[in-house]
């Protein structure tokens, strides 16, 4: 069973796995989280705006993203969006941004749909009176949103946003289907080369488990600290 478990292979390949693979995974997670929260907040504001059509566009986008598997979305952005982009600007050749940026764009736009639902709940949790108070003070919409509502909504939602980031971190492993060297991809390459699937996949599972477990514990602790006392 575990009798010929090759610990040495893990020891030897760990630097490569973390330097190449984990760096990619973490960079992608960080960029997609920041991009996703920004775009998601915009989507949430669209849904809550007084322009009905704007809300419908945002709702349509969110529902579309939430009803299609992430893998299919990854394929769409990798194979098709370069063509659509070329068509939009009237170029004859597809617009290639490279695998990394393709992944960043995919995850930003996909996760924005999930982040937007969290931010929508966050904005709605702030009492309407604050909006009126903002306007009564003479603030315009953007000042009211930026200085009154969003800072509180964001603070309330930090634990949920971080939990979603942990999900996002795990989801980035799916870029494996594009043969990209993320953490799983890097381990996969070594597993195939040396024919040591057990060692590599058990190790990968362990690393993900430790990171996600610790992160979710920290989020739980943070949850108590950021809670606004009313």
């Amino acid at each position: 069973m575990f009798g010929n478990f090759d610990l040495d292979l893990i020891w030897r390949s760990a630097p490569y796995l973390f330097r190449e693979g984990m760096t990619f995974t973490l960079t992608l997670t960080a960029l997609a989280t920041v991009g996703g929260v920004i775009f998601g907040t915009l989507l949430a504001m669209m849904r809550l705006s007084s322009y009905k059509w704007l809300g419908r566009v945002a709702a349509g986008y969110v529902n579309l993203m939430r009803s299609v598997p992430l893998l299919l979305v990854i394929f769409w952005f990798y194979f098709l969006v370069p063509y659509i982009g070329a068509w939009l600007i009237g170029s004859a050749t597809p617009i290639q941004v490279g695998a990394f940026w393709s992944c960043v764009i995919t995850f930003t736009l996909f996760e924005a749909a999930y982040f937007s639902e969290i931010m929508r709940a966050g904005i709605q949790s702030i009492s309407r009176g604050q909006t009126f108070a903002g306007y009564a003070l003479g603030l315009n919409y953007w000042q009211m949103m930026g200085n009154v509502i969003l800072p509180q909504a964001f603070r309330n939602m930090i634990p949920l946003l971080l939990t979603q980031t942990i999900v996002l971190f795990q989801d980035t492993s799916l870029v494996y289907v594009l043969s990209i060297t993320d953490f799983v991809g890097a381990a996969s390459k070594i597993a195939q080369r040396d024919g040591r699937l057990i060692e590599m996949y058990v190790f990968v599972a362990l690393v993900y488990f430790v990171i996600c477990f610790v992160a979710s514990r920290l989020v739980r602790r943070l949850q108590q600290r950021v809670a606004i006392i009313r």
Partner: protein
Amino acid sequence: MNYNWNWGIFWQTSPDGSGTYLDTLISGLGWTLSTALSAWAIALVLGSIIGVIRTTDSRLAVGLGNAYVELFRNVPLLVQMFLWYFVLPELLPSAMGAAIKQVPPPWGAFVPAVLCLGFFTSARVAEQVRAGIQALPRGQRMAGTALGLEPAQVYRYVLLPMAFRIILPPMTSEFMNIIKNSSIALTIGLMELTGRARSMQEFSFQVFEAFTAATILYISLNVVLVFGMRWLEKRAAVPGFVGPSVSGGH
């Protein structure tokens, strides 16, 4: 943009010779549904048991239940898929492992995919069931006990009927998740809907048509599901009780 549109591609014979491209996509949809439904059966049974265990008084049982949920929640589904498909046969007694590896396709990929999705989703179902039971007023359990019911009877007749009604909305999104997540089985060679669209794109180069068709099929599936669950929710509704709203997750 130089792209040769060919919507007629769906009526052309696919290279595997089993019919048209449309037939292979529909058969992929069939595999998606069978994978999701079989996994859902596992997830529902196992998830309910673990969820109930986590609301009992035994600290040991609660601890084990929590460990189960943490284990399946903190490892990416793709990695779990690899563990079930590549690693599990190696850990079993060698004769059994060899027998598993010789199972012909598509069953060789179908069974591990169902087990993987079933166990993965059971942890999420367990979380919902626990939340549902704990959302009930504490008095309900006490009232049940005061009436002379055994603990098992309290769950069966008092707590679970209400808890399952409360968690219907989050369970709907879990069911959608299992359908979407079944696409990850393509990484171990199960030719479900996304896998079929991908291979159609590789053989015919009609990338837009293939992925558009798959996307429309997934969306249609979702619409049917949402309406079905809304109907179920109305039928099962108890006046005065509303389910908790849950956001995030996949």
